[in-house]
């Protein structure tokens, strides 16, 4: 019987600074069979263990390119994530998963795509963006909006630049404020960027990730008013999923368990959840 609670060990093989308290870690499983068998979809999450500290759910921020290695982009904000930020290449963590449903990919083919990523909300979107750019001809126009607190919090900076150079892909960025950094771009909330884009909501899918208040404003004040269908607005929800498999109850909201029913939901599904979302 497979024990779903038993993590597989993985080594940190790379650490990239993404901004203040923000790092992308690349991991590789130690066991070669585990490495071989590991596969996942954009939008799924892993349970990351630091033995002796605890376990937290984290969205995969890489798309599956190399077998057995994967990336997590993590903000040092709780006990486990702060411990991880102190770790170095070669250190060992535990991994369970992948869990959750993942983003719809085939369903979005043939459509224009709008990505709205606020802060670390870009992390789960990144693998989807990469996969769509790798399959460029399957999708229409792609627009990527990213909002960060200040310029130093802009995440995946180099990649955003690269993506913007791909034909048919637009990237727009804004920062809430400038903290003495050099910045000649937009200043203001992510919703400012809606003035700069043109999109036909009838044949588009919007992927919105970020803080909850941002999701609400973007969806209710912009996307729905622009004419997006509720099921064409897709987002991810967060809770401290302690088990990842629908057992521990911590991520239950209304009739849904975010770990097994989500974390990806359409706005149609989200809007019937209790007001806490």
């Amino acid at each position, binding site marked *: 019987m497979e024990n779903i*609670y*038993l993590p597989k060990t993985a080594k940190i093989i790379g650490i990239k600074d993404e901004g203040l308290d923000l790092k992308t870690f690349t991991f590789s499983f130690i066991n070669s069979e585990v490495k071989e068998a590991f596969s996942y979809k954009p939008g799924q999450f892993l349970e990351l263990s630091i033995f002796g*500290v*605890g376990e937290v759910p984290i969205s995969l921020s890489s798309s599956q390119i190399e077998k057995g290695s994967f990336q997590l982009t993590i903000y040092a904000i709780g006990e486990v994530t702060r411990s991880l930020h102190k770790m170095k290449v070669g250190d060992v963590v*535990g991994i369970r998963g992948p869990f959750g449903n993942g983003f719809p990919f085939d369903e979005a083919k043939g459509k224009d795509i709008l990505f709205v990523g606020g802060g670390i909300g870009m992390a789960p979107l990144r693998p989807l963006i990469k996969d769509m750019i790798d399959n460029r001809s399957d999708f229409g126009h792609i627009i990527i909006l990213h909002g960060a607190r200040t310029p130093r919090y802009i995440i995946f900076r180099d990649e955003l630049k690269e993506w913007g150079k791909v034909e048919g892909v637009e990237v727009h960025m804004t920062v809430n404020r400038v903290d003495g950094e050099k910045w000649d771009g937009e200043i203001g909330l992510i919703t400012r960027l809606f003035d700069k884009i043109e999109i036909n909501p009838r044949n588009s899918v919007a992927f919105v990730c970020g803080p909850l208040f941002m999701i609400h404003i973007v969806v209710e004040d912009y996307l729905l008013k622009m004419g997006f269908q509720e099921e064409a607005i897709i987002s991810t929800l967060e809770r401290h999923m302690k088990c990842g498999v629908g057992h521990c109850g*911590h991520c239950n909201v209304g009739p849904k368990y975010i770990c097994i029913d989500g974390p990806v939901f359409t706005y149609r599904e989200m809007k019937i959840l209790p007001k806490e979302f």
Partner: protein
Amino acid sequence: MMDNSLLTMNKEYIIPLLRRIHKNQEIIAPVKEKEDVLFSVIKSMDEITLDYKNAVLSPKGFFFPQQEVIFKYKEVSGDYELSFTITDKKRLIFGIRSCDLKALSFLDAVYLGRYKDPYYQKKREDTTLINLVCVSPDTNCFCVYANSGPMAEEGFDLQFVPLSNRFTIHVGSKKGQDIVEKYHYLFQEGTQKDLDEEYEVVHETKTKFLRYGEFATITQKLIQEEVEESLWKMLGDRCQNCGGCAYVCPTCSCFNVIDRPTTEREGVRIRTWDSCTLFGFTHLAEGLNPRKEKKDRIKRRFYHKLDCYMGRWGTCGCVGCGRCVTACLGGIDMSHVIHQIRMEEYGEYISAKDSEDYRYKG
């Protein structure tokens, strides 16, 4: 001779039956400890009591212990070794009530759904369940409303119904059938007369309930959001934040996961019972908490038991065992909340015990 056929057994044969079974496997049965009756692993037959309404705690902990080691970890030459134990022990629970039996089916729905919980699964598979139908319910019980008793419809291996001098016995599974075949000399074929007496006994039991628990209409009211916020506010104010309701609840299945280092290089990961009424339950990094207020946690608890269960598993998440009625200092138990919603007295505490309306009227 599966579930359709009825068997009987002389009441005096029950201990001889259990004694024979006890030679080969562990038996968990109701044991009197001072004023309380608790399910315990018995050493000898004379510990067993048949004189009880229900045990203080359901046998939930024998499947989902209050604290359980998930695994041990140990750092060994640049990697971690993880080890875990899944107990391999055949055992029999005698005397579980139908309400607690039904509660196990809810735990099954959670732990043996799409993902199987290996610790729970093994204990569940290794356990034979004999329920003893309750004929004298406690004042706080309301299983009749939760469709979980006094008789069980399913989930038992053998079901015993106490009549005047004998039990009627229903076989619910292969495990139960095996017991009957092995100790066939203790059982008799049942007759129509036995069935008639059983019907009378069970029917009479149904009239003895004092609590009210009309689930269907209450659940509808919750779904339609016809319950005012003032009710949750009032209940939240009365909540003592003790988590007791969840600990005594046979259907509560939530747990917390904690790492406990013993040295710098090794330790254990454990899980412990958790309660959604506690502040820490939805506490997130950065100090975020979507259910900061007691009223939000209480509201969510009842929505979960009633609305979520109904939507997900087509049943209410309460079996009417009445333990939360006994345990809650603030009077925020299922029976009371249902009563309050039914009376549409949302902002004021109604003493359920004094209310005539609370009584079962047959």
